[in-house]
Structures are given as C-alpha cells and as structure tokens.
C-alpha cells in the first residue's frame, strides 16, 4: 500500500515537473485524476482490510528520518481527498490550466495533501502542510497578477503563515518526547502544556479550516482560484486542516484529556456554522456563496468533533462514537457535494460567462445536465432527505440532542444553544442553496450570454457526473460508508465504541431513533411516481403554454425577448429578507437611501454596504498595528552610529544571557 502511495507521490512530482515545463496541458490533470483514483482505491482497501504499519524512510531532516504510516484515520481523509480530487482533476483536464505555474502547482498541491495524511512524524506533517499552503497560494496568485484576486491571495498568505506558525508551536509542545507520532502518543502533554497545545492547534488548524474569527480569507481566496482548485480547497484542503485537528486532539494528545477541551470547539463550530450560513445568503458571486457554505459545514463538523471530546471526557463512549461518526460522515459527504457544486459553478462560469447571478438565469433550459446535477448537490447541501447531507446532519443533530445525557448543566445548556444555532444554520443553508439554484438555473435569462449558453459536454460533463454519482451513492450508502470508519472510532475512543449503524440504517442504540435512507428514498420515489401515474391516466389534459400571469403585469416590449430583467428577483433582492432579519449578526451594514424627489424622473436609490464584522474588528486594527510598527521600525534608520553599536551590543548580551539561562536550566 505504502509503496503504491509512494509511487503516486512520485507520479505527482513528475506531473508537476511536466507542468512546469509547459508540456502535457491535458496529460497533467488526467494523470492527476488517475493518481486520485488510485488514492481512493488505496483508501478504501486500507479501511476495509486494516491499517498499514509505520515505515521509516531513508530520507528526512538531520535529526531523524521521515516516517510514514496509513492508519484508518489517514485513510478516511485520503478517501475524502480522492472524492474531490478525481472529478476536480477531470474538470481541470477539460478546461486546461491557464499558465505553467498553475499546471505545476496543481499536482504539487495534491501531493502535499497526501503527504500530510501519510506523515507519521511531526516534521513530515508540518512540511506537507506548509507545501500545501504554498502550492494553494501559488494557485490563487498565479491567476491574479494584480487586483482584487491578488489582494485575496495576499490575505490568504498572511493567514496561512499564521496558521503554520501556530501549528509549528503546537506540535513543538506535543513532540517534547520525540518527533514520531508513536512517541507523542506514549507521553501525552499534561497541565498547562496540554492547554497551550490545544489553543495553538486550534488556532493553527482552525485558521486553515476557516473557523471564526480566522475565516476572513476563505470566502475571498477560495473563489479566486481556478474552479478545480476552488473545489479542492473547499472540499479537501479544509478537511486536511480538520484532519490535523483530529490527529492532534484525539490521537496524539491521548485519551485522558478533560472533557472541557470540546467546549471551545463546540462554541467556535456553532458560531462559524451560523456565520457562514448567513454570509452564504448575501454573497453575490456563486463561488463565494459556495465558499461561505463551506464555512457553515466546517462549523458543523467542528461542532460534532467538540461534542465527541466532551462525551469522551464524560466517559460516554457510545455518544462519543455517535458525535465522531457524525463529524467523519459529514466530512466525506461535504467533500462529495461541495466538489460537485464548485464544478457546477465552474461549468456555469465557463459556459455562461459569468459568476454573478444577476447576469445568469434560466440556465436549466440551456444546460439541463449541469442544472440537474446542481440541484442534486444543492439538495444535499440543504440537508434535505433523502439526499446525502441529511444523513450526516441527522447524526449531528442527534448527537446534540443526546448530549443531555452528560449530567452537567453547563454542557446541557451549551449543547441546547448549539442545537438551536446549528438548526438555524441548516435552515439558512437551505435558503442559500435555493437562492443559488433559483437565481442561476431557474427563471428567465438575464443577459444574452446566459440565453446562449451551451451545456457542459465531454470531459467536463464526465467530471460533473462522477461527482454527482458519488453524491448520490453517499445518500443511499451512508451507513456502509460509515461502517468503513469503524476502525477510527474504536481506535480513538476505545474498544467499546462503534459507529451508530445497523445494516443500511443509521441507528441510535439506546435512544431508539433510526434513519433508513433506503426506505425513505423508496417511499418518496414510490409516492411521487404513484401520484404522477395517478394523475396522468388517459384523458388527463396535456398542459398548454401561455404568458406568465405575474399578477397581471404588462407583457414586456418586443426588444426584451426574455422579459424585463428588472421584474425578476435579483441577487440582492433574494437576499434582502434574510439580510434584514439576521445580517446584523455577521455583517456590519450601512444603508444609504436617496428618495426620489416628487416630480423628478430620477429613480430612488438604496445603497447597501455590508462588510464582515471580522474586517472591522480584526483586520483593520491589525493593519493599523502593522503601519504603526512600520513607522516605529522606520525610526531605527535615523539613529546615530553609537546607538547602532549599543543596539548590537545589547542584542549580544541578551543572547548570551539566554544561553547562560539555558545552560543553568
């Protein structure tokens, strides 16, 4: 297995070289797709057959060789990665990279993510993580030499550097006994060291996954990249960050950590979920809508992980298994539908020429394949039964509901609040998906370009169909898929724990709640078909076409063949009720209203500016601080020679003192 994965990594490196040389525009992404398929097969085989033991490589840093392993947890996230990477690479082959840098960075990005998952020592893991950050930054930056995209890339770089620093510090604390994972496990951190490690890991992995308050870069950077890269960043890269979180907090920090470790995860997760869901309802770029929906889903996964930690601390192994299973299943399911939705958005941008809903509309007539798959993905993202998102979110909600069994009032109140927040986030996610599908695919075309769009064909359609098939399969096979994760649950929570499944159903043993995807799907399909046939017997009148009633609005003039675009809901209009009711929670808004003066023909204007609170509260003060520090540092340039000498001497004395202190301690 490891040999196979090593060969895959080697192949990705070769492909990166080819891409850098500008060769094989199609070959490079197709090769990446083949590697992704192999990764998926290896992951499933490992999950089914058992983990691969640790192997020591003959290369590595001077202080010890690099070590790799593939246990159940790594294999599960490898499967998550493969689920996104295969269709994304196919899509990349259909569109082709825009530059040599992009062609080289794409396989490198994939390889780095695989390396993070394979790593069995801190150095290799951090190396992979940093390469992943750099490669994805390069993929964003290569597309935008200047302008807003470049600024997004710079912001991303800043957050990635912060995340990397926090992770290095966190793993330094964990790896006091040694760099290898097995040594870390043998001597988990205790007391303040453990707490500090928790904080640092949470900051590092959390800012990479988009947890509040370090989410600002995500809705800017994810949409700025090329479509397959956006899909990979949103579907897979945030999961790699979550993998690091799980690996560090559940595995390396040992099982004896206190239950309150979960509390910050629950709070941050719930807040991120709600925040992302609100923002997904007001964005006016379809890829940004999807990126904000990623925030929501990352929040839900983190929430479930936090619950698992709380339950583990309270010695409730079955409930911990439930919460952990919910997080794992949602990780996989989200990878499936988010990959699909990003590719759909990319296909729309490619074929209809815009990502602005106000320039699209009515695409279901011109792009039936893309529209159908978009609805499949949107229904999954909206957590509607029987689609795939519902199974995992059912588990998340059940875990939240069951948390009253932790007989401590703070935990119960916290989880009740988290349940309400998660419920609101779910309903808002459904609203965001409705807005996405309704504005882009339904209604009338808003521009001639949208009216003349062509459906995705060839490789692009194949990529979408592969992603859609994964989504549909996960809807029906949620329980068997979760069964594959049994090794993780027992590995992290002890022998007594198992995923809450029975056959093809998700089932909570002691609570008697059950969700049977097959039964629900069959019943729904059966009832729909029965209704259809019941009403389409012989003699049922065929529908006729006529102008829309629209409450008697005048028909549009002849020069507007698709009707007046202004009479259709716009992106801002469809967002308005939710922005007005809930926008304040996540956005600093300013409305300026210029009423029309009576008698003039000038239209009234309403201008709305909405900005994430994070910019106002975090980023702008940071910017001011940077400018201040810059000014202070600038003053050093004007010092006289004696002052410079004094500075140098002072530094030397300080370093010597540090050395002496180290020798004494």
């Amino acid at each position, binding site marked *: 297995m490891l040999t196979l994965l090593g060969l895959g990594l080697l192949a990705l490196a070769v492909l990166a070289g080819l891409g850098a040389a500008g060769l094989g525009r199609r070959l490079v992404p197709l090769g990446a797709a083949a590697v992704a398929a192999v990764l998926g097969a290896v992951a499933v085989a490992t999950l089914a057959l058992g983990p691969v033991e640790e192997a020591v490589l003959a290369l590595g840093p001077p202080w010890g060789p690099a070590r790799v392993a593939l246990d159940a947890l790594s294999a599960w996230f490898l499967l998550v990665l493969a689920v996104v990477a295969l269709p994304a690479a196919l899509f990349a082959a259909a569109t082709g990279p825009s530059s040599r840098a992009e062609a080289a960075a794409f396989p490198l990005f994939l390889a780095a993510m695989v390396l993070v998952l394979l790593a069995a020592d801190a150095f290799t893991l951090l190396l992979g993580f940093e390469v992943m950050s750099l490669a994805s930054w390069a993929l964003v930056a290569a597309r935008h030499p200047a302008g807003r995209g470049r600024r997004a890339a710079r912001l991303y770089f800043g957050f990635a550097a912060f995340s990397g620093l926090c992770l290095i510090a966190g793993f330094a604390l964990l790896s006091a006994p040694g760099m290898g994972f097995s040594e870390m496990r043998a001597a988990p951190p205790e007391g303040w060291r453990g707490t500090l490690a928790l904080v640092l890991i949470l900051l590092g992995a959390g800012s990479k996954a988009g947890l509040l308050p370090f989410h600002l870069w995500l809705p800017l950077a994810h949409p700025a990249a090329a479509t397959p890269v956006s899909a990979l960043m949103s579907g897979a890269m945030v999961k790699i960050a979550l993998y690091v979180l799980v690996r560090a907090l559940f595995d390396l920090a040992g099982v004896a950590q206190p239950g309150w470790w979960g509390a910050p995860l629950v709070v941050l997760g719930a807040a991120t979920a709600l925040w992302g869901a609100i923002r997904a309802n007001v964005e006016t770029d379809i890829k940004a809508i999807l990126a904000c929906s990623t925030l929501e889903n990352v929040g839900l996964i983190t929430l479930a992980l936090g619950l698992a930690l709380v339950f583990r601390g309270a010695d409730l192994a079955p409930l911990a298994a439930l919460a952990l299973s919910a997080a794992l299943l949602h990780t996989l399911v989200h990878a499936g539908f988010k990959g699909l939705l990003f590719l759909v958005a990319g296909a729309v941008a490619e074929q209809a020429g815009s990502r602005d809903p106000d320039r699209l509309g009515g695409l279901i007539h011109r792009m039936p394949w893309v529209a159908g798959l978009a609805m499949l993905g949107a229904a999954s993202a909206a957590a509607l039964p029987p689609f795939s998102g519902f199974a995992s979110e059912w588990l998340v909600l059940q875990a939240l509901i069951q948390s009253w069994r932790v007989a401590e009032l703070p935990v119960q109140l916290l989880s009740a609040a988290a349940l309400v927040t998660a419920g609101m986030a779910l*309903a808002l996610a459904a609203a965001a998906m409705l807005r996405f599908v309704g504005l882009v695919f*339904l209604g009338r075309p808003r521009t001639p370009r949208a009216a003349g769009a062509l459906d995705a064909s060839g490789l692009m359609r194949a990529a979408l169909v592969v992603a859609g098939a994964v989504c549909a399969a996960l809807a029906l096979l949620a329980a068997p898929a979760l069964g594959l994760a049994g090794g993780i649950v027992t590995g992290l929570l002890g022998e007594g724990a198992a995923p809450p499944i029975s056959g093809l159903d998700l089932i909570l043993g002691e609570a008697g*709640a059950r969700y049977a995807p097959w039964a629900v799907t069959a019943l729904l399909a059966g009832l729909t078909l029965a209704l259809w046939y019941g009403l389409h017997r012989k003699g049922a009148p065929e529908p006729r076409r*006529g102008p829309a009633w629209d409450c008697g609005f005048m028909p549009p003039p002849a020069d507007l063949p698709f009707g007046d675009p202004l009479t259709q809901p716009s992106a801002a209009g469809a967002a308005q*009720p939710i922005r007005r009711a809930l926008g304040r929670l996540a956005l600093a808004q300013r409305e300026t209203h210029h009423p029309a003066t009576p008698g003039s023909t000038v239209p009234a204007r309403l201008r709305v500016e909405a900005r994430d609170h994070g910019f106002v509260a975090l980023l702008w003060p940071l910017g001011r601080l940077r400018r201040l520090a810059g000014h202070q540092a600038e003053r050093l340039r004007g010092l006289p020679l004696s002052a410079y000498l004094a500075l140098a001497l002072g530094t030397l004395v300080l370093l010597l003192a540090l050395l002496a202190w180290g020798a004494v301690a």
Partner: protein
Amino acid sequence: MMATFLALLTQILHAALILAAAPLVVGGVRWVKARLLGRRGPHPLQPLRDLLKLLRKRPVLADGSSVVTRATPYVALAATLLAALLVPGFAQGMALAPVADLILIAGLLALARMALALAGHDAGTAFGGLGAAREMTFAAFAEPALLASVLVLAVLAGSSNLDAIAALFREGSLGIRVSLLFVLMALMAVALAENARVPVDNPATHLELTMVHEAMLLEASGRHLALWEAQAALKLTVWLALLAAIFLPFGAAPAGAGPIGWVVGLVLWGAKMALLAVALAVFETAIAKMRVFRVPEFLGAALLLALLAAALVFITTGLA
C-alpha cells in the same frame, strides 16, 4: 406475524383517514371562521370540490417555466404524504413507526418547502421569488424553534422517535409540566408559520405584496394547483395531528390494540382534530396579520420559549 399485519393495517387505515381528513380540516376551519365573522360560509366540503374541479382542468404553464414547475408539485405532495404517514393518528405502533423520527419529519416538510420555493422561482416572476425568499427566512426561525422543542421532548421521552414520545405521553406518567406548556406554545407558533396562517400569512389574502405562500403559487394552474392545494391541506392536517399526538395523546390505540381500541382511538382522534381546527379558527379570527418583518420576532419568541423549556427540563428532571 400477526403484529406485523396489524401494524400494516393500521398504517393503511391511517393513510386513508388522514387523506380524507385533509380537505375536511381546511374546509372546516374556513366554515368556522366564516360563522365567527357572521357569514354563512361555504360548505365544509368545498375544498374537496375545488380539488376535483381543478384536477379536471388543463394546466397552463408560464412561458419560460421548466420541468421544475411540472415536477415539484408531485415531489412536495409525496414528501408531505410521507410525513403524514409517520405521524401517529388514531393508533400507535404503525408499520412505519420505527422510522418516525421527528427530525426526519421536519426534513420531509423542509423538502416540500424547498420544492415549493423552487416552483416559485421557476417562472421568473417577481412575486414568486419574493415569496420564496420570505418563506425561507421564516424557516430560518421556525426550524431552530422546532429543533429546540424536539430536544425537550427527547429529553423527557429519551428518544426523538415520535411514536415513542406519543406512547410515553399517552401513559401519562409524566404529568403536566410547565416546560411542556412552553413547548406547546412554541410548536403552535411554528405550526402557524409553517402553514402560512394568520398572523404570519393570510391564506385568504388577495394582496400580492403581503402574500408569502400564495405568492409562490401564482403561476400554478390545473392539476398542479390541485396538488399544491392538497399539499397545503395535508400539511395543516399533519401539523394538527402532530400536536394532537404529542399534547392530546389520551385515547389513542396502543401498538397491537384490536378493532375496539381502534374505534375508540378513531372517534377520539376525530374529536381532537376538530377541537384543534376550531381552536385555529378562533385564534385566526381573533388576531390580526402582522407585518412580514415582524414575523422573525414572533418566531424568535417561540424559539426563546422552547429554549426556556429546555433549560427548565434540564433543571427540574434532576438530570443535572
């Protein structure tokens, strides 16, 4: 074997019963409302007659509408129908009882809502999109209130399975609790919002600007409109049955009961549904419709009540 047969039989009876009850409930509420307002009102069977008339009519599809307009009524009605099959009526322990999870029921109703909102967007008309956006906004407040109520019920009954909850409440060992009263109020507010009743929406309005539910149906006609009307009626019946199953559980035939238990359950179920329908009519007559942007406050209050109920339950049950 016998138990399976009985469970299946009750399920089929329940399906037939709830389908028959749906138009009657809507017609009954309208009739009582008319009487309270001093009008004679149409016959309670009028919704059924309307339905049969609409089914014979040729649907007219708006220019620019797609397959969504033609498919969503079937999906929405099927989802609501499945939800109706899961909510216990005159008897408990029906064939689908093991999967009658409250979250699944909420999900099925959300599926129907999404289908309706998609249909609203499909013709590309102003009112359809407006109604869809408002409906989803209300859902963003109704759904958490519903989930918080589910939490309270699950804590008291140990499970979120509706059949288990109903069975436990029927035995009456829990007694009367303040938290259950709060949950009842929260669930009633959610039910009003979900069914587009006064004060959230007016089912009889003819003013497009204040419409929410009807605004999405403006382009539907013929059998499609019939399906949507049936869906709305069935959804109202499901909500009333849900409230009856949880808060008026006495007299329902327990799992495995014979025909005598069924008859008792049937009569009592009819009485309970009639009581709830009359209560709805009285409430709707007594109260005015509120502005659309006041609705989040109304549902927010329901959410707070449900959360308060959860806190009360945590403290009083001595679980803490």
